[in-house]
C-alpha cells in the first residue's frame, strides 16, 4: 500500500532563516506531487506541483521554492523566511495515470515563523 510522509511535524523558525520541508511517498512510482499551504482557519492554497523528477510548476509567486530530486521525494525550501510564511504545509500525491483520482495527503508540517 502507498504511504506519504512529511517531516518535520512542527517547526519554529526565526524570520530570515532558511527552510527545508521534506515529503516522501512509498509504494508507488512516478506520482504527481503537490505542496499546499493552509493559513489558520482557511482553505488550502496550491503552491507547487510536479509531474516528474526535476519538473516543478509554481502556482503563486513567493519566496518559496520546490524541488524533486528523486521520483518520490518533494522538497519545499526557502532561503529567508517571512512572517507570512507561517502556516500548515501539506504534501499530497496522485497517481500519474487515470482520471478523477483523489489526492492523498500527508500528515502536514506546522510552521511558525517568529
Amino acid at each position, binding site marked *: 500500500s502507498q504511504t506519504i510522509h512529511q517531516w518535520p511535524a512542527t517547526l519554529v523558525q526565526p524570520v530570515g532563516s532558511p527552510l527545508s520541508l521534506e515529503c516522501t511517498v512509498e509504494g508507488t512510482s512516478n506520482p*504527481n506531487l*503537490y505542496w499546499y499551504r493552509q493559513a489558520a*482557519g*482557511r*482553505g*488550502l*492554497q*496550491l503552491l507547487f*506541483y510536479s*509531474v516528474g523528477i526535476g519538473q516543478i510548476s509554481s*502556482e503563486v509567486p513567493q519566496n518559496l521554492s520546490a524541488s524533486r530530486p528523486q521520483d518520490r521525494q518533494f522538497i519545499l525550501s526557502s532561503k529567508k523566511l517571512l512572517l507570512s510564511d507561517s502556516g*500548515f504545509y*501539506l504534501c*499530497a500525491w*496522485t497517481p500519474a495515470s487515470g*482520471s*478523477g*483520482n*483523489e*489526492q492523498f*495527503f500527508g*500528515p*502536514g508540517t*506546522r510552521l511558525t515563523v517568529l
Partner: protein
Amino acid sequence: AQTVTQSQPEMSVQEAETVTLSCTYDTSESDYYLFWYKQPPSRQMILVIRQEAYKQQNATENRFSVNFQKAAKSFSLKISDSQLGDAAMYFCAYRSGWAGNMLTFGGGTRLMVKP
C-alpha cells in the same frame, strides 16, 4: 480560472440529526470532478466522497451523500445520523477533467456536533 465557494463558515448539528453543507463552483468546463474532504483536529485530510460531473446519479458513501446540481453548479454534502466524530472542517474541491489532477479548494466549513 475555477473558483469554489463555501458560504457557511460554521455549521452545527445535533448528534443523530442531518446536516447539509453547501458548495458552489464556477467553471466553463463540462468535464470535471468534485470532492468533499474532511479535516479533523489532527489536520489529516481525508476524502469523504467524490462525484464525476458526467454522472447524473448523486454519489453516496454510507451516511454521506451529495446533491449535485450541474446546471446550478452546486455540490452540497449531506451527513445523516451525525456522529461526534463527524466534527471537523469540511472542504469542497474541484478538479478539471484535464488539468493534471490539481485541486481548487473552497474556504471550508467548520462542522460542530452537539451531544
